[in-house]
């Protein structure tokens, strides 16, 4: 991909403060995370009526309850009893027909409706007005997304052509997954950026990442990049002369054969999607992983990495191939964490006013541009809003 074709993204240095400043992060909470579709689950986690998962979005102090209803529909609600705000569900996942508040035993159905509350006729409200607060939810490629604000477009419209790509990724057919999680003392963008540039591969992954680089392409730069709105994609370069080790070759060979047999080895096996704001997914059939980087505060994040699989482990070879794929992916991800934290420590010092992205770090620049655009628009929106005096009646409305 020529450097000139990326000129529209700009070439100027990037301000460093957005990567460590708590005030900037406060703006991102509202401008980015409350106003974007956020990926946080998979339909395979909700196989039955009454299946539920709880998800915490710490940057927004939000706890969500995602439930498959009796009608088969998956819905998202705030995990909060409409009586006095008590969080309803403590379990991370499970299955039940009703959700009962531990405080005063208000109980809600899988559709969020208030079903019963002790001594309810002494309240001054209708049951119909006490349903769990609903959150916008949509599904693409088997992946569950929620929107905590009022979406100005549906998920598929937001993703544009990437929605169809997502439908073709192995995760779309997944029925189970492996998962590993890490905490990191680093800003979510700094963390995320590490995984959307290949400039570091030869230095941080000299052995584990060796198959991704070669004499023709020593940095393993991608074959192409693409952009749609705030989202982006790249196609990973394929080394024409890989030299896998014996166990490595056997392991990935098995995984590839299962992917072929399962029909999950699609046309996007070298493609990668980076969906705004904080989600990646790779179409590789042998190691089909997703990676979500959740902000906790300006300088702390959590990464959740999943390898999605179709079908149960129906034989020893399949179980082995999945174990190897997870262990191998985990090795590579583990190598990144220390150097990202080192970058954060440097930025926290305030020594730098700017950072620099080269042409092959275009995806990083694109993420910053998308965040900056939203933060500036949110700032302007707040500046133009003149809050009227709040009467007691309005405060109670």
């Amino acid at each position, binding site marked *: 991909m020529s450097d000139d074709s990326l000129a529209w993204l700009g070439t100027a240095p990037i301000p460093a403060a957005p990567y460590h400043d708590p005030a900037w992060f406060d703006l991102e909470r509202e401008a980015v995370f409350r106003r974007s579709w956020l990926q946080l689950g998979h339909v395979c986690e909700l196989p039955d009526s009454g299946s539920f998962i709880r998800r915490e979005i710490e940057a927004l102090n939000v706890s969500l309850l995602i439930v498959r209803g009796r009608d088969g529909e998956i819905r998202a609600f705030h995990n909060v009893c409409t009586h006095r705000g008590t969080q309803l569900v403590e379990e991370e996942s499970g299955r039940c027909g009703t959700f009962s508040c531990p405080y005063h035993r208000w109980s809600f159905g899988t559709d969020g409706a208030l079903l019963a509350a002790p001594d309810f006729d002494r309240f001054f409200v209708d049951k119909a007005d006490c349903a769990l607060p609903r959150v916008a939810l949509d599904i693409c490629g088997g992946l569950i997304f929620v929107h905590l604000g009022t979406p100005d477009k549906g998920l598929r419209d937001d993703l544009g052509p990437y929605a169809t790509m997502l439908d073709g990724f192995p995760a779309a057919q997944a029925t189970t997954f*492996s998962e*590993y999680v*890490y905490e990191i003392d680093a800003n979510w963008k700094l963390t995320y950026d590490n995984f959307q540039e290949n400039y570091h591969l030869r230095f941080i992954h000299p052995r584990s990442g060796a198959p991704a680089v070669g004499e023709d392409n020593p940095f393993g730069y991608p074959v192409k990049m693409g952009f749609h709105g705030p989202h982006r994609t790249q196609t990973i370069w394929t080394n024409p002369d890989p030299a896998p080790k014996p166990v490595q070759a056997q392991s990935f060979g098995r995984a590839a054969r299962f992917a072929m047999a399962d029909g999950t080895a699609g046309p996007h096996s070298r493609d990668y999607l980076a969906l705004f704001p904080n989600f990646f997914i790779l179409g590789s059939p042998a190691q089909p992983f997703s990676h979500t980087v959740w902000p906790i505060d300006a300088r702390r994040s959590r990464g959740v990495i999943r390898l999605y699989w179709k079908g149960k482990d129906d034989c020893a070879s399949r179980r082995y191939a*999945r174990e190897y794929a997870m*262990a191998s992916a*985990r*090795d590579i991800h*583990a*190598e990144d*964490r220390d150097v990202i934290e080192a970058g954060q420590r440097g930025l926290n010092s305030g020594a730098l006013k700017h950072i620099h992205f080269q042409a092959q770090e275009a995806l990083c620049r694109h993420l910053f541009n998308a965040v900056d655009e939203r933060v500036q628009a949110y700032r302007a929106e707040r500046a133009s809003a003149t809050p009227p005096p709040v009467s007691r009646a309005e405060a109670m409305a």
Partner: protein
Amino acid sequence: MTTLLPTGFEALAPFADRWAIDGSIARAARRGDADPADRAAFFAAAAPLLDAALTHLDRSPIDALPPAEQRLMDMMLTLAHVSLTEEILGDQEPAHARQRHHMRITRSPAGA
């Protein structure tokens, strides 16, 4: 000893007590905590038998493996982790083990 492992895999018997490990978390941990010479010896013995072991194990239902087969299965699953040290990382392993410690396995189809 004859029932410890299936016929043909007797060479792995000296390693069974340390390397037939249940659960992905424990397997990953053993790789990092192991004595380097012990880990290398296990790899040298097990890696050449990987293909034969999986071929043998594929003949039985995965959820109802006899004890000897289950032991062999668990050893091959541990080999998946150990091979990354022995084949890929080499002398980078000590620093790498510390980095891996931060990557907490929370779910695996085979049982975390």
